[in-house]
């Protein structure tokens, strides 16, 4: 096997794939990256048995062959070489030799026989969506923050991809807050699957500026993301997702339009005093005719009271976790946002003004 490739391209591809080669699993070969050269096509593969990353590498010259080498070691060696150096990789007797100008090293590899074969998407019955990479990235960022890390409730550790009203929506909830984004409109096929949040984060990390479109293909128990030269395959979470749409309150009599930047600042100020209390509780109150106030009290420190001017038609009060509120505000993107709630015990709904694409709801704290 032989490869000739530029340092920058190889380093980028290796850094991308080596992230998941962490060796948390009992099988040592999973610490390795599989390098396969076939008819001048080079692919780098790693897997942790929950997901796999495949990076297709553009090379200037190559000879066929296949080997696995410790991923982290190779990635670090390559990234520390001078940029734009031409790198040559040769393999002999499971030993891989990397030469780049004055630098050279040889690393012990192992046969590719032990490396697991990757599951493949069955193209025939796959459900495929395509979308712009920025919409995808933005959507996942907006939703994934609400997913849970509690492994005892596996369904909630993922992002739920589902279709209704000819729309592909993604949603996540940890039981205390919920985020939903309408990702693609006018879709033809139906889907209802849970993708692990950890896999989606790897997809986001693989995104670079040159990419424009992402293709997502779903099978019954597998999903594949194709973006640029990268392909990511992940298992799906085999569980049923709660009927989250039921949880979004419909009849909110209190509706407020608030400047997002201003509310972020006010929330940050209030959070300073709320940090000491167990749940970072802050109290939001709407008062006629035009005051929206945010208050927090820390008995040892003192207290904070800020107001924002906005039109108030119905009065009401609600206590919220300040961290949840600022998380939500940070992923909303319009200049003005809409807050809706009914009373102090039902959830508050946050949306970009005049847009129904993104909905974030937070449960109130009760005293």
């Amino acid at each position, binding site marked *: 096997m032989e490869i000739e490739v530029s340092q920058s391209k190889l380093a980028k591809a290796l850094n991308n794939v080596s992230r998941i080669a962490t060796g948390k699993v009992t099988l040592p070969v999973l610490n390795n990256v599989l390098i396969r050269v076939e008819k001048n096509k080079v692919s780098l593969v790693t897997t942790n048995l929950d997901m796999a990353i495949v990076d297709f590498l553009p090379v200037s010259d190559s000879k066929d062959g296949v080997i696995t080498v410790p991923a982290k070691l190779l990635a670090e060696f390559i990234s520390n070489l001078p940029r734009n150096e031409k790198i040559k990789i040769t393999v002999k007797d499971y030993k891989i030799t990397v030469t780049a100008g004055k630098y050279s090293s040889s690393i012990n590899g192992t046969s590719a026989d*032990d490396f697991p074969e990757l599951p493949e998407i069955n193209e025939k019955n796959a459900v495929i969506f395509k979308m712009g990479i920025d919409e995808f990235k933005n959507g996942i960022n907006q939703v994934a923050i609400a997913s849970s890390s509690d492994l005892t*409730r596996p*369904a909630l550790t993922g992002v739920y991809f589902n279709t209704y009203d000819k729309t592909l929506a993604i949603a996540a909830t940890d039981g*205390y807050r919920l985020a939903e984004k309408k990702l693609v409109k006018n879709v033809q096929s139906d889907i209802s699957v849970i993708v692990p949040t950890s896999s989606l984060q790897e997809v986001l990390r693989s995104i670079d500026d040159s990419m424009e479109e992402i293709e997502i293909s779903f099978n019954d128990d597998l999903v594949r993301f194709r973006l640029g030269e990268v392909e990511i395959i992940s*298992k799906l979470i*085999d569980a*049923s997702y*709660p009927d989250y749409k039921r949880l979004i309150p419909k009849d909110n009599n209190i509706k407020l339009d608030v400047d997002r930047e201003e509310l972020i600042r006010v929330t940050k100020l209030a959070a300073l005093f709320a940090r000491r209390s167990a749940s970072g509780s802050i109290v939001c109150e709407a008062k006629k005719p035009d005051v929206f106030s945010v208050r927090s009290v820390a008995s040892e420190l003192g207290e904070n009271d800020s107001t924002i001017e906005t039109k108030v038609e119905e009065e009401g009060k609600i206590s919220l976790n300040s*961290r949840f509120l600022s998380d939500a505000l940070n992923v909303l993107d319009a200049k003005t946002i809409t807050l809706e709630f009914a009373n102090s015990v039902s959830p508050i709904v946050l949306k970009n003004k005049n847009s129904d694409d993104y909905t974030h709801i937070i449960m109130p704290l009760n005293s």
Partner: protein
Amino acid sequence: MWKNTPLISQKYITQYFNSNKTCGKLHQKVIYYFEKEVTVYNVWKNVLAEIEQKISAANFSTWFQDTSIVSIEDGVVIIGVKNSFYVKQLRSKFLNLISDSLSKNGVEFNEIEFEVQTKTKSKVRPREVTASEVTPIKKHIKPIKNSLLSSNGLNSKYTLDNFIVGSNNDLAASAAKSIVDAPGTRYNPFFLYGGPGLGKTHLVQAIGNELLRRNPDFKILYTPIADFYSDFINSVLKGKGNEFSQKFRTLDCLIIDDFQFIVGKEKSQEEFFNIFNALYQLNKQIIITSDRLPNQIKSVDERLASRLAMAGAFDLQLPKFEDKCAILRSKADLMGAKIEDEAIEYIAENVNTNIRDLEGEFSTILLMSDVRGLTPLELINKGAVNVSHTSKLRPTSTKQVIEKVAKYYQLTPEEMCSKSRVANIKTARQVAMYILSKEMSMSTTKIAAEVGVKDHTTVMHGIKKIEQDLKLNFALRDQIDEIKEKIYG
């Protein structure tokens, strides 16, 4: 307390997990095909045992770890696996092996299918041994508790070196050192007392170990008092009462743990008293731990109580912040675990109950950091850990504390915070000051204003008074614990 309402109730969660299709299906199978299941279970067990012989341990535990047979019907064997990565690998690399093994075990089939079963508990753990490999268990278990005298009851993991000395326990620790240097002389009997989880057992076990290290011929016995009397009763039942006490009397050092549980065991107490006297006469070292002073243990004979504490009683107190950090640091070094100083400080700051809880919390965090692949500090910063719910509680207001204390002493808050010098009112007031200071870390000046006394010196005096009384007055300790329970309850 502020509490977050869950968006989805636990009931709902349970419902939707139960409604999960694979679970439901399996459940049915278990009911209708119970007999079949048992056969299938055994078949798969044998298949796994055979495969384990043929492939490497790493491969076996990776690929066959949570596998099971879902069903064998109409010539189709369905094998349950974790996810599609496993399906692919088993199909492409191990299919022949599996089918050979299945045929050998008498399964007739035309086809092997794989099914992803995330939530299925595997019916056979691959590590499970087959019948032929089972060695008779009895041979391996030494009859440890057969008789107290067959072993010395010491656990070598407790040593004086890994006992962290701080201001909370330095007296006891230096007494322990002098016992090791000259057993049976100055600190005899050595009476050690303190709340649960503060290191009593560690210290006395360490003394025993160190004595044994220096004098290998020493006869040492460590026993919780409960074992002492159960063995005593057994010996009496077998008519070997004399033999029992004779064996004890030949010891060079006797260590009795948790002496407070002697309560109500009069005959055992008498026996213990005799043994105690005999050993003491011969200048043998006696070490006793308890959660309170001898005269506060109910129904302990006065003669015994006065003897137990005659060489002084040493107490172990709650460690201070610095001590806690030192304990955690040394434990981390011992375990070879990496943990940031900030993380240690965080744990030390937030666990205020005892050392056992401290170490428990510490291990949990290390474990979680291992599992999640984050450093302990990242874990804490992410809020993924919630250090010991019980120890983190704080009363919400001073008013609440004062009301609760007053109510406990059947006074009104006004009465309690008056200038009255009547004994019980004064005590109540001082208890309130003590709790405000310890539980809410309020300054003495602030406390003075709250409970209506002249100035902060009065408060300081009050707190000091209670602190001193607490050492001797166990009724007061119980009272304060009850009040705390009411406040946090």
